[in-house]
């Protein structure tokens, strides 16, 4: 394989349409269709209530209202609860909501009625005229209330526990009991959310002429939505097409499916015989899509004099919200990925997944890893502090070494496969990180800053990320007679530049011009077998499948070209779309090879004239050989035995204001290893975005629920997503490339990495900045705001003699 584009900073092809305002997001579709109807949803204002009566009489008077649905109007599978997508044996009490609430609502925002009108404004007017009698029930809000279990979210779920799961290698508790040193930590992470700039949205059109349903949805899985729509509406799969247009960000939330609206919109379109659109507004996204992150953890660890882990026991409580449509993926990932690059000799993890009367929890970029990383890295920092050793040394003492790969942890990962790391070089990564951030020079810098009365601190955090989970992805490559190459893969895209990165792979593998390759994603008409875009899997899974499919097409092209050129296949090469015999002038365009591949009866243009059955082939043989098929195409699937494990390390230098406790970022450094890079520009963009989301999650973003279950900050005004003013002014990135042995391109996933170590790395740096002044101050809960840091200072008030208050004040005056 010539690798001229793989690894290059190729500008993105999708930018052209985005920059001209010609992207097509779901709310842009069918806007000029006068028959288009618009939907709005009545949502529960209560966190926990029985629905006694719904009166829609006033709605039908509103001019422009076409129809209204409540649960009573649903029939067959639509009247059953939504699917529990990923069941697990330990999820003994899984529950899912109905498309429209049946008798009970369990979170503010749960869908109750669905109104369709000629205009969204009118549909919302109509929603406000629906009268519902509720019998309010006491809500369960937050992990503490769920654990206390004084009240139940679901009457038939004892103690609010949906699942209890334990995994263990060795005997952690015995090892801890026998260890020379032990520590105990309690560590909490609050709720946050993906909040893509584009919320959810679905459009559906029923074609009565063909009895066929087309659904466009802003989703991370077209094939998943298709399966659900067909099953719920009682349609043959072949009657349903799902197309994912341009998607304005996903970050995980759009992998959950089907959302109530993803079923109700097609139902309405079929029932009414008119296209229907639902576009979620921002408040709806906060209260009726999904959140993540909230977990409480209890850690017991035993270690030796070098800080080597002898036994690690972690118990944690996961808040999964009101229902469990996505199963236990998030807590399972925390429980396994918590281990990071380390090898505790004995490990036990136990978790409970708990119901609360709040929005459901599904994966958000990182998906349980940020919490796991926070737990492990806080533990590493605590061990270093206890032993008085450098924090990097404790980590080094516990690293899996480069010669230990593949490394088996003896646990089961989220994909049901053994947790086995394929490759990595953690000592090399750490060396790079120390260099990049200036770890060894930091004490000089701290002293320099201290002389000016300024407080600075440094932190680091390491993670390993299982990426490219199965089961499979596929690709279809079609070389047209024009020589242009049309490629389809089934997973969806949300801004990762797949049309560019995948075209780079095809151009290299096939030997065609990049400009001649066109990639289609997320369209079940083009590729009905696919899984979806999550778990940093798109490049690994579809990238590999596309490579394999392009190889199939290439094999066929070489076979046909060899015959046409009367040459040996091994003497042929393909470059810029031309097959030539090495060392001769003999050549043939791939487009012509495509002509030869398909014997035609009818000549409709010049190219086809050359392909008619009277022009090509041996008259003594069938026009298409027994083991062949017409057309120059290749199709293949990639299905790895297990996930590939990317890794990385972040370090940050922060400054904390001695008076206001404001936290500012002075330097941010990333060492990242995702194997071979297809397009470094795109990978770095993913890291930038992940780091920014991580800053949000560490310092600003939280879901402010009150005790009655109302989300108080359900707007961009109140939920503090970082602007440019909150992110680091630069992010220093260094790459290490330890290729994965599991796929033909040696790649690993990169999408989520940037966000994983954030809570851990900021907690470490802020604590480090404060420790000289408040030796007992420990940061055990994230995110942290300046007020919370201020409170922590008050709780650990003792200023050591090292920095007398008077001197401090005097220095400040001279600034």
């Amino acid at each position, binding site marked *: 394989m010539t690798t001229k584009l793989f690894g290059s900073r190729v500008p993105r092809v999708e930018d052209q349409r985005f920059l*001209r305002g010609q*992207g097509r997001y779901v709310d*842009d579709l069918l806007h000029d269709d006068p028959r288009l109807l618009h939907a709005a949803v009545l949502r529960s204002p209560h966190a926990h209530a029985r629905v006694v009566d719904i009166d829609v009489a006033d709605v039908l008077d509103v001019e422009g209202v076409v129809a209204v649905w409540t649960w009573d109007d649903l029939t067959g599978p639509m009247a059953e609860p939504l699917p529990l997508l990923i069941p697990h044996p330990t999820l003994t009490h899984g529950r899912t909501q109905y498309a429209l609430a049946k008798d009970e609502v369990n979170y503010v925002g749960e869908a109750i009625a669905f109104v369709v009108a000629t205009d969204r404004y009118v549909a919302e007017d109509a929603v406000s*005229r629906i009268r519902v009698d509720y019998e309010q029930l006491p809500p369960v809000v937050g992990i503490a209330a769920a654990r206390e279990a004084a009240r139940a979210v679901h009457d038939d779920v004892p103690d609010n526990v949906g699942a209890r799961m334990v995994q263990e290698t060795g005997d952690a508790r015995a090892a801890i009991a026998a260890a020379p040193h032990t520590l105990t930590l309690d560590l909490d992470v609050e709720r946050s959310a993906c909040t893509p*700039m584009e919320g959810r949205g679905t459009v559906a059109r029923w074609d009565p002429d063909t009895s066929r349903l087309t659904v466009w949805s802003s989703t991370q899985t077209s094939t998943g939505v298709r399966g659900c729509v067909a099953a719920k509406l009682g349609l043959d799969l072949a009657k349903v097409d799902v197309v994912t247009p*341009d998607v304005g960000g996903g970050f995980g939330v759009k992998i959950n499916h089907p959302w109530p609206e993803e079923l109700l919109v097609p139902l309405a379109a079929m029932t009414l015989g008119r296209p229907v659109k639902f576009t979620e507004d921002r408040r709806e996204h906060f209260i009726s899509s999904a959140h993540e992150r909230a977990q409480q953890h209890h850690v017991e660890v035993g270690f030796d004099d070098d800080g080597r882990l002898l036994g690690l026991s972690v118990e944690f409580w996961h808040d999964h919200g009101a229902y469990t449509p996505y199963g236990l993926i998030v807590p399972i990932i925390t429980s396994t990925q918590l281990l990071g690059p380390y090898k505790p000799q004995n490990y036990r993890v136990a978790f409970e997944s708990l119901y609360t009367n709040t929005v459901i929890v599904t994966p958000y970029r990182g998906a349980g890893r940020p919490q796991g990383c926070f737990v492990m890295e806080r533990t590493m920092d605590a061990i270093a502090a206890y032993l008085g050793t450098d924090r990097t040394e404790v980590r080094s003492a516990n690293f899996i070494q480069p010669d230990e790969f593949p490394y088996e942890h003896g646990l089961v990962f989220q994909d049901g496969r053994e947790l086995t790391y394929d490759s990595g070089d953690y000592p090399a990564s750490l060396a790079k990180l120390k260099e990049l951030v200036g770890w060894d020079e930091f004490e000089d810098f701290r002293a320099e800053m201290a002389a000016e009365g300024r407080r600075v601190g440094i932190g680091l955090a390491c993670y390993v990320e299982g990426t490219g989970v199965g089961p499979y992805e596929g690709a279809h490559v079609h070389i047209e007679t024009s020589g242009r190459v049309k490629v389809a893969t089934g997973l969806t895209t949300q*801004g990762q530049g797949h049309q560019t990165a995948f075209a780079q792979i095809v151009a290299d593998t096939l030997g065609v011009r990049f400009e001649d390759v066109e990639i289609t994603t997320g369209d079940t008409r083009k590729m009905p077998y696919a899984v979806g875009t999550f778990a940093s899997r798109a490049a690994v899974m579809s990238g590999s499948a596309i490579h394999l499919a392009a190889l199939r097409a290439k094999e066929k092209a070489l076979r046909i070209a060899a015959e046409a050129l009367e040459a040996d296949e091994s003497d042929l090469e393909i470059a810029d779309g031309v097959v030539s015999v090495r060392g001769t002038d003999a050549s043939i365009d791939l487009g012509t090879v495509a002509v030869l591949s398909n014997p035609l009866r009818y000549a409709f243009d010049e190219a086809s004239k050359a392909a008619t059955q009277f022009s090509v082939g041996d008259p003594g043989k069938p026009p298409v050989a027994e083991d062949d098929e017409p057309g120059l195409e290749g199709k293949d699937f990639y299905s790895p035995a297990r996930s590939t494990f990317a890794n990385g390390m972040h370090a940050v230098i922060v400054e904390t204001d001695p008076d206001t406790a404001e936290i500012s970022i002075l330097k941010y450094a990333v060492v990242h290893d995702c194997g071979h890079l297809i397009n470094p520009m795109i990978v770095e963009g993913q890291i930038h*975005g992940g780091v920014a989301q991580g800053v949000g999650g560490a310092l600003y973003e939280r879901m402010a629920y009150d005790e009655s279950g109302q989300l108080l900050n359900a707007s*961009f005004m109140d939920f503090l*997503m970082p602007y440019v003013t909150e992110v680091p002014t630069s992010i220093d990135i260094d790459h290490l490339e330890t290729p994965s042995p599991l796929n033909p391109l040696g790649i690993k996933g990169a999408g989520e990495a940037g966000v994983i170590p954030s809570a851990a790395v900021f907690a470490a740096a802020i604590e480090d900045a404060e420790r000289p002044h408040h030796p007992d101050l420990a940061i055990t809960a994230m995110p942290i705001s300046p007020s919370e840091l201020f409170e922590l200072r008050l709780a650990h008030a003792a200023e050591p003699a090292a920095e007398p208050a008077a001197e401090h004040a005097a220095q400040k005056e001279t600034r």
Partner: protein
Amino acid sequence: MTSPAPEELHDVRLRVNGSVHEVRVPARRLLSDALRHDCGLTGTHVGCEHGVCGACTILVDGRPVRSCLMLAVSAVDAEITTVEGLTEPDGSLSPVQQAFSDCHGLQCGFCTPGFLTTITAGLRENPDPSEDEAREMIAGNLCRCTGYQNIVRSVLRAAEIGAEGPASRSTDVDGGGEDR
């Protein structure tokens, strides 16, 4: 509850990207919705509908305005420029658009139109911004994908392209522009 009275509709003439659009809308129709759904200019995106994210930013008489905070009926007589109108007359990308492509200043593309319009106006006011000024220029727009690193670079690159190119290259993108 009584039936609501039918809404009064208003004939509004919107001048967008040099073309006239006659639309018939109720008084409450947001300019963002009128542009997207009545004029068919779907390049302007709506991210929050409360003026915080900046995705729907357009130029009204050359100045950046959140179209979700303006009613269509109040845009009569204004000269409006949306992302569709930023492109050069010959169809090539404007300096700001080109800079975003050069610097990978966009990922999902949803917030991008608001950044492009904001920066177009910003550079007209300050054609040679420092890095801090570039940051300040985009400090009112939210992006969830890029972490802003490459958007700041795009602002600086756009200024560079603007300075390199012919004077006409960076002008006349909105038809207003008395403050050039």
